């Protein structure tokens, strides 16, 4: 005699899956009013935050570049060229 039913028949496991899953019933069920309210709320879109931060960073960097170029600050200052050609003569 076999010990259990699960190993006896190949469809027994499928039957068991079907029987157990059909016993799973949602406690709250469909809630259309709640769904409508959720749909009305605008979803938080993280990509917009990233896009805004990237744009702000680009503006800051470009502004810094223009300011430094205008006031001859940092490496954008026109460097004096030391000519040593007279020494070669």
């Amino acid at each position, binding site marked *: 005699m076999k*010990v259990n039913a699960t190993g006896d028949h190949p469809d027994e496991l499928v039957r068991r899956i079907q029987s157990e899953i059909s016993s799973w019933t949602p406690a709250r069920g469909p809630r259309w009013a709640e769904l409508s309210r959720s749909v009305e709320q605008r979803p938080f879109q993280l990509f917009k935050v990233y896009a805004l931060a990237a744009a702000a960073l680009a503006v800051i960097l470009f502004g810094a570049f223009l300011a430094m170029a205008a006031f001859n600050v940092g490496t954008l200052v026109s460097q004096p060229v030391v000519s040593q050609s007279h020494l070669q003569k």
Partner: protein
Amino acid sequence: MEKPAELDPATQFRELYEREYRSVYRTVRAMVFDSSLAEDLCQESFVRAFRSRDKYRPTGPPGAWLHRIAVNVAISHLRREKLSRVIAPKLWMGPGSGGYERVEAKTLLERGLNKLSPKVRAAVVLHYFHGYTRDEVARILGIPSGTVASRIAKAMVVMREELVGSEQTAIPARSGQ
């Protein structure tokens, strides 16, 4: 038995929601093992589906489209949960509060399902409970059809072994009482 007419998500979303809610819930429940969480994720899936209802193309049944959204929502949730378990396990949860701990599989079948990954659990439920074909399951899960067939076959072997093992250990325990 006559098959019910298929509903158009763009114009009959409410009817579709009421008809498919339970079915989608069961798939999500098999993935997360928590009835309350499954209901929240199920509701979130329908919110997403409603927002993108105009993008639905009738290449498959609307139920399959809803299941695809729900599976993605559940997988995203499980990934977020796993990530937060890794990053900040004790930041806002006290020890033993149980929020991130894996939900205990209560029944024998749940223990069998628990041996599988969430995606394979979804495949088993979609195929053996909802009756989707392997091609439809493949489209829902976004994996090749051959992979679905091999994963389902392997899953059934794993589950059968788990159930047989559990029952064999339970029988001596019962007879010893």
